[in-house]
């Protein structure tokens, strides 16, 4: 593991009206940011259910970015405040699960802030790179003696029954 360089897998949920456009702008302005982030466009950061973030992590993502319009600038009046509260709830819960706070980050970026968004992606990737893989699927791994123990059980039952006629 240690001889290979770890490339973090990052999923970025970005809102259609601001942060996704900021990513677009970063592209057309040729601002460079790490290719580790896989962007998923949603209509509003208020649409981002904590389930989405947990699902991304459980499928093998090492970090997640939740990005929306600046507070007060939401296309749907105040839904990014909902995103802010959901993120607060999620952050509190993930800390209790022992997941480092840097892995899931909330970012505000307006459609003009391509550079800021690129910087935020760069920061998230660097943070997660420093932390190493999350490896959620692997954290549920089976105990290695398991199969052998199960196979031996049939034999033990048969032996225990040998005393009977």
């Amino acid at each position: 593991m240690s001889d290979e360089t770890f490339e973090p897998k990052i999923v970025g949920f970005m809102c259609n009206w601001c942060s996704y456009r900021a990513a677009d702008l970063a592209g057309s302005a040729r601002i460079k940011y790490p290719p580790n982030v896989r962007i998923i466009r949603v209509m509003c950061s208020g649409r981002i259910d904590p389930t989405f973030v947990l699902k991304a992590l459980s499928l093998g993502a090492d970090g997640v970015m939740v990005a929306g319009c600046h507070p007060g600038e939401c296309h749907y009046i105040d839904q990014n405040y909902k995103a802010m509260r959901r993120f607060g709830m999620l952050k509190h819960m993930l800390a209790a699960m022992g997941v480092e706070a840097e892995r899931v980050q909330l970012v505000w970026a307006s459609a003009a802030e391509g550079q800021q968004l690129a910087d935020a992606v760069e920061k998230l990737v660097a943070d997660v790179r420093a932390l190493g893989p999350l490896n959620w699927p692997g954290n549920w791994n089976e105990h290695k003696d398991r199969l052998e123990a199960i196979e031996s059980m049939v034999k033990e039952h048969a032996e225990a029954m040998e005393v009977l006629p």
Partner: protein
Amino acid sequence: MSKAKGKLAVYWAASCGGCDIALLAIDDKILKVSEAFDVVFWPCAADGKVHDIEKMADGEIDVCLFNGGIRTSEQEYMAQLLRKKSKVLVAFGSCAHEGCIPGLANLNNRQECFDTAYRDTPSTENPQNVRPRHETQVPEGTLYLPVFYDTLKTLDQTVPVDYYLPGCPPEADRIWDAIVAILEGKLPPPGSVIGSDTTVCDECPRKRTEKKIKKFHRTWEIIPDPDTCLLEQGLLCMGIATRAGCGALCPQVNSPCIGCYGPNNDVKDHGARMMSALASVIDSQDPGEIQQIIEEGIPDPVGSFYRFGLAHSLLRRGKLAADGNGHK
């Protein structure tokens, strides 16, 4: 019921035994069950040998009600055995369905569970640091204990399951409904949860108005008004995200729902659903205040949102989870 008697098995794995008792809580209807079924295996209530089950033909048992999660190799073996021998395998109760309280140990691994049980608890006297081992050599030969896994899994994470009966424990009336459905052959499609598809709020008689929460209270901090929605009074009531079936027993006695019936149909992650809903009703737009409301009001988020569903949720333990609350 003139046809030949069916065969019924009841088994328990990582559970408290409450589900076996719940099965008897259907009262004298249990006699109707014994009219329809021969109980071939029920370790909690009757003597039986695993070897006799092993000798049965595959699919010989008509219905197996399996309660408890899978924590050891013995439990996994029994789950596989009873799956093979049963036509219909029912995950009976919250442990088999979602992991329930034993599943909360998934915050920690096997080593940490053993440290607590065999070293750290104040009542433990274990100077030689003896731990359970799979194999122990004694002069007479080798003795075996089941292997204790790192992770508790639900029944359907171990073997394919036909039906689920939620609840900790399932309510007697719902158990009887399920038994009647089995006897009359009126079962829903395989893979279904046998039960209601609304939420606890639907059965709760309390008055609901607009939900706006400025502060969460623990149950011992306030005496709630008996007629108003508990969540609106700031108590963390899981009713909004929890499957109906219990008749809103807890809210009716001024105690918030703790979510034992698990999530409603098509909800992947009970706790995430609850977090999402709660975040919508917190009445603040200030990041600092939001953080304060959440952190002061919900000191144990995993225990609050995933009390019954941690093993079955999308969550996996992090590397840092050393002491249960992880905040260190």
